[in-house]
């Protein structure tokens, strides 16, 4: 396949997701409602508990990261979910494209959307709680966002794989299982407070390292030696695994007929 066709297929998916997003009011609601509720409740709670400015920043970074990852991974999952909901999955897999086009195309839309959510939440945090996202500087911020996007990609593709493996009834299970892992990533606490067994899981989540690196700029000592490199390496590993799992799930769906069943 030529580069032109590669980019064109990705662009087709990007455009499709963007159009669907723009036309479905509830998607928009989903996009804004929970993130705003999250930041407000966490911010107010930190005020009630009389946390220091640094501590408040710690939890706000966590809740903003969770929102960014959630919005972005949801969009990545739309790569197959939209077609599962509309029962048009087979048309895509009849076309000469690969899953990379689907996931990358959706990821681009996911990044744009979650960036918009991030800006909104950052402004809200600043206005309501005096929290400054740019305090660490542009580069750490960009790295942190990249970490969120990569985590979202992995989560979204994993959800796609689970859905094509077990059918659309597995939707709830897919979200629950991946979100469970996310919450372990030390969103609201350093992973040193976790019991050992769970800390092992948290250490395997790339987002943990990106949060750690970013929070270091707010005065929390880093718990890892090279958090960013570790986060990137883990993300790359999981991205490859998730991609492979999705690919295998699609091949299996072609064998079992699930691909057809999900389109009727």
């Amino acid at each position, binding site marked *: 396949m030529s580069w032109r066709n590669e980019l064109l297929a990705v662009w087709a998916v990007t455009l499709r997701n963007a*159009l669907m997003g723009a036309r479905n009011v509830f998607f928009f609601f989903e996009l804004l409602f929970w993130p705003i509720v999250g930041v407000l409740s966490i911010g107010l709670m930190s005020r009630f508990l009389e946390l220091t400015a640094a501590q408040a920043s710690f939890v706000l970074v966590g809740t903003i990261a969770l929102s960014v990852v959630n919005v972005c991974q949801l969009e990545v999952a739309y790569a197959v979910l939209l077609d599962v909901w509309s029962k048009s999955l087979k048309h895509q897999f009849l076309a000469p494209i690969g899953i990379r086009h689907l996931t990358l195309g959706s990821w681009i839309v996911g990044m744009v959307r979650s960036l918009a959510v991030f800006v909104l939440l950052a402004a809200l945090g600043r206005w309501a709680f005096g929290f400054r996202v740019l305090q660490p500087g542009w580069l750490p911020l960009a790295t942190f966002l990249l970490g969120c996007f990569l985590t979202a990609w992995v989560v979204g593709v994993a959800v796609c794989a689970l859905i094509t493996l077990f059918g659309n009834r597995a939707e709830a299970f897919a979200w629950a299982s991946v979100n469970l892992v996310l919450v372990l990533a030390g969103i609201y606490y350093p992973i040193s407070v976790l019991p050992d067994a769970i800390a092992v899981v948290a250490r395997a989540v790339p987002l943990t390292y990106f949060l750690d690196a970013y929070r270091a700029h707010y005065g929390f000592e880093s718990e890892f030696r090279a958090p960013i490199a570790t986060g990137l390496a883990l993300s790359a590993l999981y991205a490859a695994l998730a991609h492979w799992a999705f690919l295998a799930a699609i091949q299996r769906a072609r064998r079992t007929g699930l691909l057809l069943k999900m389109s009727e």
Partner: protein
Amino acid sequence: MLAIDAQDVEKTFRSGWPRRRETAALRGVSLTVARGAIVGVLGPNGAGKTTLLSILATLLTPDRGRVTVLGHDVVREAGALRRRLNMVSGRPSFLWSLRVGEIIAFYGRLYGVSGNALRRRVDSLIELCELVPYRRIPYSDLSTGLKQRVALAKALVNEPELLFLDEPTLGLDPDVAARVRTHIARLRREQGITIVLTTHYMREADELCDEIAFIKAGRILARGTSGELKRQIRLGEVIALKLDPARVPWLAESPGVLRCVEVDGWVECTVDEAENRLPELLRALHAKGIVIRNVQVREPELEEVFVELAK
């Protein structure tokens, strides 16, 4: 030159958990289709038609058998093959809030069409499928017939050499169905597209298909032109007579008459060969002084072939 060469294709679906159910959908199907032909796959519900088409279109992998489509192996060279074929299925569905033009353009891009070429392609397909007034309507607001036409337009977006149509006129009113059939016939005539279609409308198969393969319980039972199938099944031809007096019991015993039934005042005699038997019957009736008020001769309908084979 063969567009499709499938040999001994088998497919068993395994579903259900924890208790496994196995459905043998195809049990050794062999089918060849010449380039530029329109072949109909007919058969009762659950016979395996959709399964067969899906395997040929790379949506499903066969358990066993060798399948070559347009010179490509459907499993090993699926990618190259997918550029060259497309499919329409009976109950189409696409993303609900995309507009007609956007849907066709989306799939066009997946097949590598872009820029001005894409715009021209979308325009011409919208025209061809008579969708001009609906171009900006969201998919979910379209009627069944319009949705079916969108599906047809989408299926032509990559200018396929081979088109699979799985019940393309399902749920369409007779007028729209007739126009879809005209489109299909024109696609083959003007662009030389090879077409494999399934349908439950025997008229449609009779009108469109060069050849018909009859499939039942995962096996191909008969194959040939509609005329050949009718002869093969030995259904004979029907001579319908309106007589006075209406009942003539000895007619059923006449030479060459396979059976006789009375329907709405007509006596319908199924005979082996109408051309030879008609003069004999008329002569015999005349000799007995029976008045012949009306005579009709007709071939058996494909529908009767279907009912016979499906038994």
